[in-house]
């Protein structure tokens, strides 16, 4: 028989909470959505902040891996607008400063250096400062935030939001050395830090070395996307010619084309080597660019820059579908085809091993340690460009490692995840969560009018959800963390749960040998193999097993409602995550 599912350790139930499982930082989404539903925005913000540190920033910019994973998407095609609800909590919160972690006045005597003031380093600082570490951050630029500040355009992320959330950490007492580029890691290590964290990002935009790239008259009109966005941010660039080609179709390309459109690039086109299904940009970024009138040209592979009379006049492409070439006229070109890491400032003879092929440091996947004791990597610096929420999670894990290291504890003996399960039963037909299914479609984000958007670079495009939209959207959440918890010894096999389940999740099945057979035997065949089955121990009367296909359970509680013996209960699952400042788990929830 397939082995009974282990529900005593968190894995099974955690995986049922699709959004939380998919979130790199395992943000407790359903709980923060319920807090929003209750109007407890400050608590919701604080709960978010514990795992993802930058709720206001992420509520606008997160790559949102949680949304494609969200169970609601498998019910009516559209996931809960998890990310934008996070922004609601951030926008509507009261002053959170009284509830933020504070650095103790008695220091622990350890000093750590963090290189770069991007989200990865800031998370390390956030987790170590409350433990009494002296944290020194070296930042090449004059402000904190990393790419979040220099590259993500202000029309997506207002400066005020960045200032506030980076400020919460720095104001805890981090010693930030702005305008200080680290040029030698060896020299920094020699200053005698107890540990060093490298969160310097992946700062180098990829080149496109095709004919004409370096010619006079072309060079100055060809820009590297991330550098160009940086220059726009610093005010070094304020205008662009009308006809602009953006090469590449990732998220950087989307920011480049939309920025270009605002700086005078009225005829900005994005040119992609492959067809739409291979585009790297998030669907919503593509939509937003489309709304702003940006044309996307597919299946065009760049061949050369066309220069006439010493000026760039266009680019030649091979059309991969028709096998011919075409010249698209342009005045400026922005290359947005990826980023590389660069560590010219890390000496190769100080004990940090680099991978021979990619020239990347060798970093342990769990501890984020390099091969030199006491030196850690995280964020884009570790394994190349990812996103903010991954940088945050790397920061949390690296902070745990640094704390272990500083105490002389082994790095591989990491604190583990725990869980709490609490019944939500309140009485007859009464549960401590809103178990009614809300059939509303996903709310659409309102956008600023085009004219207004193009009037100034910093006009935020997304206006946020209205209170009505918020109220509806939170109710779309199925509360996947309210788990169907089964006690086999209580079941009398009356079938009531099986019969009542609106989506045919449950089956009392014979004890067949393997899971594949079992999947086909259920009330409705369990065809989504990415979703686990819950398999009970054998039932008292017939020795059959209770099987639940977790795939599209609505967490409506009807099974528990109709069970005469309370063999099913709806229990709220809370994942307990270890942090450096609290290895025993998540902080007590703040009640404001």
């Amino acid at each position: 028989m397939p082995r009974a599912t282990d529900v005593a350790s968190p894995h099974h139930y955690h995986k049922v909470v699709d959004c939380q499982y998919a979130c790199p930082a395992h943000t407790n989404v359903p709980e923060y959505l319920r807090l929003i539903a209750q109007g407890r925005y400050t608590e919701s913000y604080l709960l978010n902040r514990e795992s993802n540190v930058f709720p206001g920033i992420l509520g606008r910019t997160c790559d949102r891996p949680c949304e494609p994973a969200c169970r609601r998407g498998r019910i009516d095609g559209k996931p809960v607008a998890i990310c934008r609800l996070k922004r609601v909590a951030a926008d509507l919160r009261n002053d959170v400063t009284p509830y933020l972690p504070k650095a103790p006045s008695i220091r622990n005597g350890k000093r750590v250096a963090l290189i770069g003031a991007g989200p990865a380093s800031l998370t390390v600082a956030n987790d170590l400062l409350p433990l009494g570490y002296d944290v020194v951050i070296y930042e090449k630029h004059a402000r904190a935030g990393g790419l979040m500040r220099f590259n993500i355009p202000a029309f997506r992320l207002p400066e005020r939001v960045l200032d506030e959330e980076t400020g919460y950490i720095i104001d805890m007492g981090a010693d930030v050395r702005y305008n200080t580029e680290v040029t030698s890691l060896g020299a920094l290590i020699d200053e005698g830090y107890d540990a060093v964290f490298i969160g310097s990002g992946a700062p180098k935009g990829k080149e496109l070395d095709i004919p004409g790239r370096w010619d006079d008259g072309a060079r100055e009109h060809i820009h590297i996307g991330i550098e160009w966005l940086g220059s726009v941010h610093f005010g070094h660039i304020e205008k662009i010619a009308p006809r602009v080609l953006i090469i590449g179709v990732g998220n950087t390309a989307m920011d480049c084309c939309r920025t270009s459109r605002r700086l005078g690039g009225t005829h900005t086109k994005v040119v992609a080597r492959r067809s739409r299904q291979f585009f790297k940009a998030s669907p919503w970024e593509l939509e937003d660019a489309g709304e702003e009138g940006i044309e996307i040209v597919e299946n065009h592979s760049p061949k050369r820059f066309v220069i006439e009379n010493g000026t760039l006049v266009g680019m030649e492409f091979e059309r991969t579908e028709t096998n011919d070439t075409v010249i698209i006229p342009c005045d400026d070109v922005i290359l947005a085809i990826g980023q590389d890491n660069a560590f010219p400032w890390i000496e190769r003879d100080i004990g940090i091993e680099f991978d021979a092929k990619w020239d990347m440091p060798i970093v342990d996947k769990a501890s984020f340690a390099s091969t030199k004791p006491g030196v850690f990597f995280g964020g884009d610096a570790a394994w190349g460009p990812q996103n903010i929420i991954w940088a945050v999670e790397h920061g949390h894990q690296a902070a745990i490692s640094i704390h272990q290291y500083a105490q002389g504890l082994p790095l591989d003996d990491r604190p583990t995840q725990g869980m709490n399960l609490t019944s939500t039963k309140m009485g007859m037909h009464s549960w401590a969560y809103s178990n009614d299914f809300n059939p509303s479609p996903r709310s659409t984000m309102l956008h600023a009018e085009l004219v207004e958007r193009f009037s100034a670079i910093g006009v935020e495009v997304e206006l946020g959800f209205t209170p009505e939209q918020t109220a509806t959207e939170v109710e779309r959440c199925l509360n996947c963390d309210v788990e169907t918890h089964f006690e086999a010894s209580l079941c009398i096999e009356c079938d009531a749960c099986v019969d009542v389940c609106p989506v045919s999740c449950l089956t009392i099945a014979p004890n067949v040998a393997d899971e594949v057979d079992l999947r086909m035997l259920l009330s409705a065949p369990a065809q989504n193999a990415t979703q686990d089955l819950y398999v009970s121990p054998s039932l008292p009367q017939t020795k059959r097993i209770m099987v639940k296909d977790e795939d599209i359970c609505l967490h409506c509680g009807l099974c528990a409602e109709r069970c005469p013996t309370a063999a099913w209960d709806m229990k709220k699952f809370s994942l307990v995550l270890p942090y450096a400042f609290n290895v025993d788990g998540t902080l007590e929830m703040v009640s404001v």
Partner: protein
Amino acid sequence: MTSIAKPPVRHPGLRKNAIGFTQRDYEGAMSTLCAGCGHDSVTAALVQACWELDLPPHRAAKMSGIGCSSKTTAYFMKQSHGFNSVHGRMPSVTSGANAANRGLTYIGISGDGDSLSIGLGQLCHAIRRNVRMLYVIDNNGVYGLTKGQFSASADIGSTSKKGEANVQPPIDPVLLALTLGVTFVARSFSGDKAQLIPILKAGLSHNGLALVDIISPCVTFNDHDGSTKSYKFTREHDVEISTADFVPLRHEIRAPETDSAVNVVTMHDGSVVRFRKTHEGYNPTDRESAYAHVRACQQRHEVATGLLFIDESGSDMHAVSRTVPTPLVDLTHHELCPGNAALQSLMEKYR
């Protein structure tokens, strides 16, 4: 009592039957019975059976009397006709409805109290008339609705929830029906849908009254140790003396069955019931052998289950009364009531 409603969401893989309905289209209102009541499982089995038979809901009539069991007609096929009669009168109301409109499929749901106490006479006569209907008795050994008094099906020695033993002998609806000439009788268990659903399908296809006695535990008043109608007791004492598979007409019947252990009965509409032999010497088409086996099981304190007896050659009420094939409701007024001259000529025959 209950305010909960089933979410309108369906499993995306839900199949449709030949007339385009999903199983959920055969559901009714949310049950207000006690959680875990066997009657709800019978309802679920009926939903599945009717769906699998592609029964058009608007061509069915759900008939019942009084009791928790009788309430269940509200919990399936919300598109169907229905009549909730006074206590014990379901059989005669169904007889009347069937007389007037033989075109509908009649599904009668009753309880052991409704059919074996107050309605016993009604049951007997419906069997004798062989009214074409599925007659379900949700048998829990108690009057559930009135809080668990022993019913006429309670076994001697079976105890009430408070521990008092029943002293009066039980009426076994299966044995009773066999003696009254029933043409289809089965016993099953609400906790065994694999057995129950084919039986319900065969019963719905039978040309006459199909009586299905279903042990359907009352979780609230009769599911304790000491009860002989509990989930546990039934599972421990259930003996399946015949196993029936129902093969509806539209499914091709593969290679002719040569296995002597399989007994094939063809229903009047061409569908087929195949019996796999589980007991030596048992013949589901022989009334005497059926009676003897059920009796023998009873004496061993076993519960004989399965499709126990079937006779497809019987004549139903309409055949016996030689009514016209067209349902009476579909006749014109003139055909139904041909006028005084016709009446006088009829009367003349009796003079």
